[in-house]
């Protein structure tokens, strides 16, 4: 079997490992428009912060491609899927035949129309290693940085460069920061913390016009800056599959084996729609753990194995200047709430299952909550009141502990 993978990030790596679990022989070719060894995208802010470096941020060891016998075509753009001829067409005219294809093409920064943005001399996105390195070159100690977008990417960027610039202002159209993962109260706690660390905010506004190094906001305020970072959002890269006639929505549509509507073509990672097990909705869940899991499912399926069922859900671990935020699932149902200083916790539950949670500050053992969500553990089987106060295994039935900690099986 000839496997071709478009992409070289978490989903692609998951697919390589999934394929090699089943098929040690088949030829695997990885095509990527980047030229780097596989690296962790979410680490680019840590790179600027000096918490990692180019060697340590590699997602897999230097010997990864060799160990897994992969051919790498890096610095190449795939422009078309020839579904009849079962081949990938490259921008340079090359044709790469495939038996099974995985599209793990990721997403691209989305920059909404902002009049005058082309007049800004120093503007950057913050998605890739190249973006981070380009931004790094532009930094200087007195620099005033304007970040458009108070989401995960914009705020991680702010943290990453805070020590290396003079001033950072973050603006967002939403009335609160991290609006995709936090409720109002949680967002307020994190914003206060970020402000103490020197980040300024303008919320509920957007840029009306740019003129060089000046931005006029919709509230009439004018901000002068030296460096602009746009981190408004991302768009899944769906065009390869869409142009080939494959089914797409906001992302590429796949089944539980990560197969697209085109025979022998699979997709995984930030470019696909996944079923969120906590809401039952199909959505783009552009998060590294989901990308790896989807890639691995695809790889196993492509190699003819039996992959595990996808159990995707929103889950975020993010921290700023020592304040940690862990969230998972859907924020619907009854609410259990605890607040002590900057420690904040909200659990959302209904119909005897935990749907989601937000934890800020004290986040120990949060995975016990994630597991309750993922496994849809009936809350009536555990001491939910106890586990709500503090995640612990003591709140579970003795039989659960005997199985998980004692290695006893109740199947026989």
């Amino acid at each position, binding site marked *: 079997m000839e496997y071709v993978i478009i992409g070289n990030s978490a989903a692609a790596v998951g697919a390589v490992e999934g394929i090699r679990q089943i098929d040690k022989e088949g030829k695997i070719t990885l095509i990527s428009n980047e030229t780097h060894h596989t690296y962790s995208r979410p680490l680019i802010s840590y790179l600027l912060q000096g918490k*990692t470096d180019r060697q*340590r941020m590699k997602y897999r060891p230097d010997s990864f491609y060799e160990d897994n016998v992969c051919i790498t075509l890096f610095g190449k753009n795939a422009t078309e899927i020839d579904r009849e001829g079962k081949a990938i067409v490259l921008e340079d005219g090359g044709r790469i035949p495939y038996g099974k294809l995985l599209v793990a093409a990721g997403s691209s920064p989305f920059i909404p129309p902002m009049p005058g943005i082309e007049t800004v001399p120093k503007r950057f996105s913050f998605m890739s290693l190249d973006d981070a390195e380009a931004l790094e070159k532009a930094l200087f100690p007195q620099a005033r940085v304007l970040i458009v977008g108070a989401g995960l990417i914009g705020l991680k960027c702010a943290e990453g460069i805070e020590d290396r610039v003079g001033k950072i202002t973050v603006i967002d159209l939403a009335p609160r920061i991290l609006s995709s993962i936090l409720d109002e109260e949680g967002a307020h706690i994190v914003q206060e913390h970020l402000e103490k660390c020197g980040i300024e905010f303008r919320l509920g506004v957007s840029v009306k016009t740019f003129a060089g190094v000046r931005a006029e906001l919709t509230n009439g305020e004018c901000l002068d800056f030296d460096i602009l970072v746009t981190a408004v959002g991302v768009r899944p890269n769906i065009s390869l599959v869409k142009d080939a006639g494959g089914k797409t929505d906001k992302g590429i549509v796949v089944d539980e084996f990560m197969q697209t509507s085109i025979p022998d073509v699979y997709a995984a990672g930030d470019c696909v729609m996944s079923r969120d097990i906590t809401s039952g909705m199909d959505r783009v869940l552009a998060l590294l753990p989901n990308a790896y899991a989807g890639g691995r499912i695809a790889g196993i399926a492509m190699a003819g194995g039996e992959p595990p069922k996808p159990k995707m859900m929103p889950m975020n671990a993010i921290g700023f200047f020592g304040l940690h935020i862990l969230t998972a699932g859907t924020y619907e149902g009854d609410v259990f709430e605890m607040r002590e200083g900057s420690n904040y916790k909200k659990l959302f539950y209904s119909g005897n299952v935990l749907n989601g949670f937000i934890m800020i500050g004290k986040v120990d053992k949060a995975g016990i909550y994630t597991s309750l969500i993922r496994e849809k553990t009936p809350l009536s089987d555990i001491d939910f009141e106890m586990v709500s106060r503090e995640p612990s295994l003591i709140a579970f039935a003795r039989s659960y*502990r005997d199985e998980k900690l004692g290695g006893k099986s109740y199947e026989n």
Partner: protein
Amino acid sequence: MKRVYVNEEWCLGCHLCEYNCAFANSGKKDMASALKNIKIRPNIRVETDGKICFAVSCRHCDEPFCVSNCISGALTKEEGIIKIEREKCVGCYTCVLSCPYGCITPSESGAMQKCELCANNGGVPACVKGCPNNAIVFEER
């Protein structure tokens, strides 16, 4: 494959496993300098509600979410043991969010730490060696 298993009914709640773990992973030669006046950060922790008690450490899962979800590639599973390469870890807490047993915790440096079955400490986990009542054992089940 040998793992640390819990015999809940035998646990006295004495917390010796926590001290032995912290000592074994301290790199120090004597217990006093490793533990005295130090807030220990053991990789095994006793849970108790006053009546029931038991010790919890990494299960070295067959399908470890901590490893598959790790964003840096710092967590790996080799020969049945889930290990963390602390130099690669940036302390993002995705593993804390992923572990169903609460068994990955931050070290003093901010990088995560976890039980590696004392693979580099002589092979038999120090927690088990020092357990006075066989409440944790290192065996195949």
